[in-house]
């Protein structure tokens, strides 16, 4: 073997060892940085702060749009991961994110135990959709009891007297009802079954409110798109989807009877009425589900999506930046919310929320807001 070749081989070997060593140190560095907060603590200005949130998928389109819009205004980097409410709650409890998001409100006891604050950031409506020959959008009328009976499987045909009694002017076929529900765990299902539980004692005892209830009948679709596809494909089907989805894919919705006896069609005004008429002042942790709320124009199936933050914040700058973002959403994000078919939180509720921030959010013993 010639000397030069020998040298080259040795060089290559050293190079390889170097690369190996380098990758090892890089790995170690990545491990050391795993809490991800050390860098943030040094940040002085809001523009340098990066915030993360995780949770519900229902408000994800809105939150990600808000984050992008707000970044243009303030330079704040905010990243929202739609990992599901359950995972979001777990992550905020473990302090791996700056805020969590959940479709189902936590009860005050659980909030106190984890040192969390809860407030609503947006709302949305859930609407029943049908596929029935000759029945147009908004033509069919239903009430909560009948809807519960359909989902319990006790009302099996569209010509059932219970449905006919509400729809004297609609010709109903003697056709089987195919019930479609979500197969994945979702806040939409939780809001829908909370409504059925509020109206029907039988539903409450047999099934109850859950993100993944034990459905007595029907077929499951994955996501809003799965339910929508099944309803559109099957004549005689009924399902439920988020309002935005029903509107954007032009589905046949029904009018529902609200708590004051009026039959209302699902639209933004009817959802806003539900929020405006609710008694937020008396709900600890704003733990309110907007089903079956009072008011003549109120749509009966509306749910808020909640934000969870820690009462005791580690870093005053980051905490301030986070609350400023939420404040901006309440103040300036409403047009975006309406475009995406979400419902803005009423002003009186915003005032209550921000008063709570002033009172309860602290960093190192000092109040953070305003």
């Amino acid at each position, binding site marked *: 073997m010639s000397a030069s070749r*020998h040298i080259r081989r040795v060089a290559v070997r050293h190079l390889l060892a170097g690369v190996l060593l380098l990758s090892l140190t890089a790995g170690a560095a990545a491990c050391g940085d795993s809490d991800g907060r050390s860098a943030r603590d040094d940040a002085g200005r809001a523009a340098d702060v990066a915030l993360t949130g995780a949770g519900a998928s229902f408000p994800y389109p809105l939150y990600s749009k808000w984050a992008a819009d707000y970044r243009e205004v303030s330079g704040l980097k905010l990243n929202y991961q739609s990992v*599901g409410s359950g995972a979001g709650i777990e992550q905020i409890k473990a302090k791996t994110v700056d805020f969590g998001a959940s479709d189902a409100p936590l009860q005050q006891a659980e909030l106190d135990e984890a040192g969390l604050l809860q407030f609503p950031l947006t709302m949305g409506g859930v609407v029943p959709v049908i596929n029935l020959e000759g029945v147009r959008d908004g033509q069919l009328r239903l009430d909560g009891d009948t809807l519960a009976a359909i989902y319990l499987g006790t009302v099996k045909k569209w010509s059932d007297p219970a449905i006919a009694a509400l729809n004297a002017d609609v010709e109903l076929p003697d056709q089987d009802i195919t019930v479609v529900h979500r197969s994945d765990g979702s806040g939409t299902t939780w809001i829908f079954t909370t409504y059925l539980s509020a109206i029907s004692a039988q539903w409450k005892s047999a099934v109850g409110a859950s993100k*993944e209830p034990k459905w007595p009948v029907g077929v499951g679709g994955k996501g809003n798109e799965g339910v929508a596809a099944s309803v559109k494909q099957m004549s005689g089907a009924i399902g439920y989807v988020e309002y935005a989805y029903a509107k954007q894919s032009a589905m046949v919705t029904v009018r529902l009877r609200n708590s004051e006896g009026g039959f209302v069609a699902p639209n933004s005004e009817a959802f806003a009425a539900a929020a405006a008429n609710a008694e937020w002042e008396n709900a600890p942790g704003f733990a309110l589900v907007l089903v079956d709320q009072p008011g003549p124009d109120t749509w009966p199936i509306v749910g808020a999506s909640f934000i969870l933050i820690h009462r005791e914040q580690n870093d005053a700058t980051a905490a301030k930046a986070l609350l400023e973002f939420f404040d901006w959403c309440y103040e300036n994000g409403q047009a975006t919310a309406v475009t995406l078919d979400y419902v803005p939180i009423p002003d009186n509720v915003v005032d209550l929320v921000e008063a709570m921030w002033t009172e309860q959010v602290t960093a190192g013993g000092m109040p953070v807001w305003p």
Partner: protein
Amino acid sequence: MNPLQAVAHRRVRRRDAGPASRPARPLAAGQDAAFRWFTVACAATVVALMGALASVFALEAWPSIKEFGLSFLWSTEWDTQNDRYGGAVQLWGTAASTVIAIVIAVPIALLVALLLVELVRPAVGKVVGMAIEMLAAIPSIIYGMWGLFVLVPLMQRYVQPAIQATPLGKLPLFVGPPYGIGVLTAGLILSLMILPFVTAVSRDVLRMVPQVVKEAGFGMGATTWEVTRKVSLRYGLGGIVGAFFLGLGRAVGETMAVAYVIGGSHLFSWSITDPGYTIASNIANEFPEAAGDLHRASLVELGLILFAATILFQLIAQLWLRRVRKRVGGRA
């Protein structure tokens, strides 16, 4: 080690035995040692990962294992309100959809592989082979969407009513209204998804049959069919079984495509035209929003069962293969 790897492994060993690869120079020997340790470390990582996976699964599933015991395997209850869980619906759904997929896909795949290797001109074989490999590259979510929007309406309008019209419709396996979605549809989607894999591997295995052996068969006056059956298939048996298990593994564990078309129902039904659940699709659907500790533990236990079943299949395959090899005296 799957049977394919086993074949490769033995070949390498045989080649190693030759004098050519004996270390001659000290430097090269050092490199060899380093390389050896590096590969050993990589292999050990795989084994360690498996152990870590199994123990984490077992730990996370422990609340459910403790609460429900063995009855988890045959209980059909899945009640998030009262926190009672059982896996019978998912086990049946997984088994049924996988069997449907295998029964449809494996014979077709074998026939296509034989056609490509034995019967058509190499140019044609190349084109068709490429098409098959491209099918294998399609992401499973695309199969799911296609299934939901195209296959489900077809099943609902034509296939299921047709089955109902025949005497088969009276069997418990086929009763029920034509929803379109369900275990049968999931099985069909799965068969489409595993077809390219099984075909591609079987084709490569059949190609590895030495021309000399086949020509010996032809020389003895055997027909194409006889050579295929008695020479090619026997010679490639190990590899074909490997292909079969590759397909099985993919079908058992497929998640997204199944989640879209299976109908996500926790009500037990023997009928494959009814909506049901498979283990993988159930975990995918419920894990993100799993309500309580027990609910999550039960989902993890389902995962653990799937994990154990996969290993068991591999073991059975290995044992069975060893027996078959002894009997037919094939090389593979």
